[in-house]
């Protein structure tokens, strides 16, 4: 075919825009595609046991590589991330348990107690939480939170709450599951609070008037009438917050204690999360000449990616509205 036979009709503006906008889905597709390709050999060797095993061992890196299932790995290499899955899910769960009540309380306060300028100022303060970079949370956790919890709070809790399962036992050093959960909770509270605050404010006035007319106190109106109406939003915001907590890296890495190959025995135990583990292990994974360790880390990244996409898609489906909550430019967007 000669070059001249192709007709160069100028593309319409809409088509141009459509093509450029395709960069957004293309980048997500590229992330998924390359992580799948890169981690494929690791997934082949590790099998489904990857998510049920409790060992992360890159093997004897000074020995000669061996063949397993047609893939070259180091002798003794064995990869399993059950302890990471446990650490990730448990720390996020603790974060939600702490963040949802505080977030709901803050949302009620911002929507019902303060008005006008004061509401704006308070909202800014609450949302500044989300603007603080993750690594600064980690620094604060290291300097303030970990010593406080490790020296004073955890020993006290371990003594007085020993009758509760997972609250007794060794109080540890302050680095651990609960500390990670607390820091994560601080990071996701603004997300829950600002989404729920807007939902509360936008509840129909008639609901409020009806409740008042029935003689409900103001708090009863909020708690029994307005809040149930925002249940869907609260669930959506909570799932969105879960997605954020699951993928949080730096702050968790700096306060979680970094467990390797064991499950937490109580809420003070050190843990590792999938995201934090990728950062902490890449250097040692690079020692593996067969690249199997690095590829297994890619498999973790892929699993984390799939979980986050699922969680976020679910949350968006529930919320149906975009919200900039939890980001530095916060609620002014809505």
């Amino acid at each position, binding site marked *: 075919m000669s070059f001249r036979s192709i007709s160069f009709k100028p593309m319409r503006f809409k088509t141009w825009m459509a093509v450029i*906008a395709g960069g957004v889905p293309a980048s997500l597709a590229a992330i998924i595609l390359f992580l799948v390709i890169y981690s494929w050999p690791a997934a082949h060797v590790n099998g489904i046991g990857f998510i049920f095993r409790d060992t992360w061992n890159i093997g004897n890196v000074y020995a000669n590589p061996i063949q397993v299932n047609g893939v070259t790995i180091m002798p003794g290499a064995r990869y399993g991330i059950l302890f990471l899955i446990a650490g990730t899910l448990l720390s996020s769960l603790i974060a939600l348990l702490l963040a949802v009540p505080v977030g709901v309380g803050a949302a009620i306060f911002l929507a019902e107690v303060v008005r006008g300028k004061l509401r704006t100022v308070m909202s800014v303060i609450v949302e500044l939480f989300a603007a603080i970079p993750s690594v600064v949370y980690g620094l604060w956790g290291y300097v303030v939170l970990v010593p406080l919890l490790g020296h004073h709070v955890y020993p006290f809790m371990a003594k007085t709450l020993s009758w509760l399962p997972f609250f007794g036992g060794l109080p540890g050093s302050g680095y651990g599951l609960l500390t990670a959960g607390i820091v994560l909770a601080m990071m996701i509270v603004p997300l829950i609070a600002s989404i729920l605050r807007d939902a509360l404010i936008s509840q129909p006035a008639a609901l409020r008037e009806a409740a008042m007319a029935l003689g409900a106190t103001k708090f009863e109106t909020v708690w029994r009438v307005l809040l149930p109406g925002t249940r869907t939003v609260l669930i959506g915001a909570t799932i969105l917050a879960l997605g954020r907590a699951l993928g949080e890296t730096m702050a968790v890495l700096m306060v979680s204690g970094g467990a390797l190959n064991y499950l937490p025995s109580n809420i003070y135990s050190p843990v590792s999360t999938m995201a934090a583990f990728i950062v902490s292990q890449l250097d040692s994974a690079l020692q593996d000449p067969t690249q199997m360790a690095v590829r297994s880390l890619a498999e973790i990244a892929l699993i984390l990616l799939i979980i986050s996409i699922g969680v976020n898609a679910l949350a968006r489906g529930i919320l149906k509205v975009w919200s900039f909550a939890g980001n530095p430019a916060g609620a002014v967007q809505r």
Partner: protein
Amino acid sequence: MISGDDNHASPESAQASSRSSLTIAGGSGRGVAVPKIIRKVSLGRRAFSIAGWALTSLGVGLMVLLVGSILWTVFVGGWSAMSPSLFTTVTQGTGGGLLNAIEGTAVLSVGALLLAVPLGVAAGVYVAEYRYSRWARAIRFVADVLVGVPSIVLGYFGYVTMVEGLGWNFSVAAGCIVLAVMCLPYITRSTEFALGELPDALREAAYALGMSERRVILRVCLPAAMPGVLTGVMLALAISVGETAPLLYTAGWSNYMWDGHLTHSPIGFLTYAIWTFYSEPFSSAVALAYAAAFLVTAFVFIINILSRYIMTRERI
């Protein structure tokens, strides 16, 4: 009643009004007797309400306390670590200054914005102006999902594809591209939001003047939506400056100033200084971590407040 400021939850006023059911309405001077609301709230319900408000206030108080603690730690620690040499010398081992990191953060953030802004604004324009097409809805959904992709996954993707796959090693290009992918959905969605807020009359008027679709969007709608677009760009800037995880394995770290090469040369950045120096046993290193935390947090806050200012000024 909606204003709810008449404080009928307070026990005193409830009792007072139940004693005298008919009073003259608060100083209106017309002498019309208006029955005040008679309210007998049982002790249990009153306790429930008081406890409820107490807990809500406690939640907010806790948050203010924690935010205060973080800011105190960062700003007091950071302020005492401030010195002119921070801005004039590069990092040497566990001491020195942060000039290389400041430059690196600036280079990486600007590079990321140069990549993400044109793409993100174009995508936002498409999603907003052709919002009923299936492709636009798909892009909006993907942008939402992309916001939720953990930053370390993006970083690892950058490591696998660019640092390893293309052999760029730790480099400015890899760091910028990863940051750009991270910023892209924010710019897209804020552009879309800003355009969606515009009244349709604006577009109709422009079309009525005989403008082409392209001119209507680029010359009328986009300038009108500029404050919103700018907010998205500033948000993206704040994210680029504050991020650590995606850069650790794409930009690397360097004690020296950037040599101008896009690939094959690592570059320093401020958040790395926090991450690597915070637990060092040397006070000079810890001071660097604090100083970097101070600079990053202050910058992010200023951007945050500035973008709010732009948005509110536009609303008025």
